[in-house]
């Protein structure tokens, strides 16, 4: 990749070296955050299994908040850093912006840790209005303020990063070219790498998500000043922001697969009319699919609920027919170089697909009536995160680490790592799915008698998480080692 970037004529060797270094720093930071945040998740499942019965439940909810926001943030920066690195071949992202965002992200993370582990702020990642203001004595006003300060800092930094990457795309491509419109009308035009197309779509969507977050924070401030805000409006804005953010993280991961998997398969993956239509459809549909988070708000107009289901269902088309089929067609009977990276890319797309199937099922209003806020919800998003975009980003870091360090992997260790991650990961996920099917609620520190089976499922999940953590540790040992060597 950096050879291609060097050949593009866009960069001097010195500039590239600095960018490589920044990318490695991002990668190592992600690799440091991963085990910490994973251990927090481990703690949660252990708590639910009854292992910490003497500990106040407030700790569970504070850890839940940190784990969920921390993971979303980690994979956001991981995917943005990865895409920035891959864009070096085509355009010039700004290194200073990347450094600025890095410092801002660290500051935001520190503040998040302070308000959750230090202040027991426990609203969950979507801080649904007006819960942050109803602490019931658990967290102090300073923790609420620190939480919103963290979100503001992260939001501002990440918006600047988004704008910078969009600016970088705009320096080489017109808007129409970047969205592949020439393919739609059948005009010959500039070759558009799928990476650029998907990144452009994702960045536009994430801009709208960040604006929604700004409005939410501003309205919280209005409430703090004594003006009641409509809870339903806040819910719509909050889920618009959250839904957009978690989806574009996945799309940026998919973009990395479109860019890197072809080199392992020895075949190209080009933008064509179908790919352009698919991602144009995603740009539109993802803005309305978020209504599926509000099905159980019966006050929301029914036509909006049905629109949410239709858009959520239709989003399966570009994903399934174009990206997933494209991956399979790319790899089918190819002279495939199966390394840890390419395996993770391939399995990541599979995980994204499986999580997507569970998501489409839950986006059916009739089904959501029985699955909403049960363990089915963390089941599906952990599937397309842990076994989806996380695998892809870890594959990217591994790919970059090998490329920049020159160190090769040990195949046997890679196979063991993959097996542990797969068995541990899907086993852990299955207990979530089974919990959802059996009506176990999500986000419960302790399971009451009606859903006491949740405790047993948590205990089984803990066993699988142990395997998963071993796999993560093996990965960290190998890949971390390579990244550190490349940095040195």
């Amino acid at each position: 990749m950096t050879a291609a970037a060097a050949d593009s004529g866009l960069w001097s060797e010195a500039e590239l070296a600095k960018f490589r270094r920044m990318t490695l720093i991002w990668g190592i930071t992600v690799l440091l955050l991963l085990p910490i945040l994973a251990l927090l998740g481990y703690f949660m499942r252990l708590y639910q299994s009854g292992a910490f019965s003497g500990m106040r439940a407030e700790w569970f909810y504070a850890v839940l908040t940190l784990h969920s926001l921390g993971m979303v943030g980690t994979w956001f920066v991981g995917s943005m850093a990865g895409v920035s690195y891959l864009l070096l071949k085509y355009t010039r992202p700004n290194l200073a912006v990347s450094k600025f965002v890095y410092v801002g992200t660290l500051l935001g993370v520190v503040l998040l840790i302070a308000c959750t582990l230090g202040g027991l702020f426990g609203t969950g990642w979507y801080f649904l209005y007006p819960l942050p203001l109803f602490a019931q004595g658990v967290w102090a006003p300073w923790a609420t303020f620190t939480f919103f300060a963290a979100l503001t800092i992260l939001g501002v930094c990440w918006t600047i990063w988004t704008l910078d990457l969009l600016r970088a795309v705009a320096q080489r491509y017109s808007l129409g070219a970047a969205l592949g419109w020439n393919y739609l009308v059948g005009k010959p035009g500039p070759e558009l790498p799928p990476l650029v197309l998907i990144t452009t779509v994702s960045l536009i969507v994430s801009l709208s998500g960040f604006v929604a977050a700004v409005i939410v924070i501003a309205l919280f401030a209005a409430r703090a000043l004594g003006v009641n805000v409509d809870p339903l409006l806040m819910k719509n804005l909050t889920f618009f922001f959250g839904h957009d953010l978690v989806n574009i993280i996945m799309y940026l991961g998919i973009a990395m697969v479109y860019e890197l998997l072809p080199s392992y398969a020895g075949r190209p993956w080009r933008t064509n009319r179908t790919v352009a239509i698919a991602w144009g459809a995603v740009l539109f549909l993802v803005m309305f699919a978020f209504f599926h988070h509000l099905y159980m708000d019966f006050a929301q107009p029914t036509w909006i609920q049905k629109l949410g289901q239709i858009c959520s269902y239709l989003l399966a088309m570009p994903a399934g027919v174009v990206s997933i089929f494209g991956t399979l067609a790319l790899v089918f009977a190819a002279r495939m170089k199966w390394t840890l990276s390419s395996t993770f890319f391939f399995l990541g797309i599979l995980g994204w697909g499986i999580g997507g199937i569970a998501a489409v099922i839950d986006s059916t209003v009739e089904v959501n009536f029985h699955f909403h806020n049960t363990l089915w919800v963390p089941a599906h998003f952990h599937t397309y995160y842990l076994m989806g975009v996380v695998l892809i980003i870890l594959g990217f870091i591994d790919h970059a680490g090998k490329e920049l360090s020159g160190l090769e992997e040990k195949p046997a260790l890679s196979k063991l790592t993959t097996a542990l991650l797969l068995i541990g990961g899907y086993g852990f996920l299955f207990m979530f799915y089974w919990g959802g099917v059996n009506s176990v609620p999500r986000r419960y520190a302790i399971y009451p008698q009606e859903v006491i089976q949740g405790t047993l499922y948590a205990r089984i999940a803990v066993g699988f998480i142990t395997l998963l953590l071993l796999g993560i540790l093996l990965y960290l040992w190998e890949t971390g080692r390579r990244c550190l060597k490349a940095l040195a």
Partner: protein
Amino acid sequence: MHKTGPQSRHRLPFRWSFRAACVAFFAFSVFIFVPVAFAQDSFGQPSQEPPNEERFVYKLTPDVPITTSSGVQNLSAIWHEKPVLLTMIFSRCARVCSPFLRSLNSAVSDAGGLGTDYRIVVLSFDPKDTLADMQRLASELGLNADPDWTFGVASPSDIRSLAAATGFWFQWDSSTQQFDHASLVVAIDRGQLVRMLAGPSVPAASLREVVQELRGKFVASYALAGQVAFRCFEYDPTSGRYSLDWGLALMLLPGTCAILATAWVFFLLPASRKKRNLI
């Protein structure tokens, strides 16, 4: 001559009789007039609280026969076609009934839906009222030719069972020669009471809400204490109407800003305007 001594004892029985009569009269007063004094309340003012809708909502309405200008028919013959707004008055009413019906008519004109979403049935609870009395009342109100207003009478026992099931109450006040009664209109859908509006007049906004409910919709939002900022659609209870509010603009703002920001980056930023190797 005032005699004392043994001869005066002969006068004692009269005095005692007088005292006994006073005591008896007093006792009579206590035992007769005190309950009457308590009962005085029920004549002078309403004896019951305004009926609470929640005690009656979704309860079945007795399907009683009523006599109208179309002959004798059960109430269900009317509510099977369309939901019914039912109210009870009496034709000799010198106080609230006519103003109440006029305000109902006005509210109906304002809210709409008469004939398409519901019909109105006005019954008398006065056993002395005849169909002719009710038709005269309808004529005085200008409603006798309106096919969606039905004026009728029913038997006293049927009226009593209807009143008990729908929250109406009425009581004869002999001092005023009038009935004291509730002023209310109830909405009946497929035989079940769904809404109740109590009060001497019918606000158009309230009726609009009732009509919405008869159409299967209802107002889900209510006012929170303090000023509520930015709903998408604000319901105004005084007018009974929804209006667009700034919340809708806030929902459209993220997408709009994303489009504007994209346009700014691609079309207005100097670095984008002078593209290198524009492809």
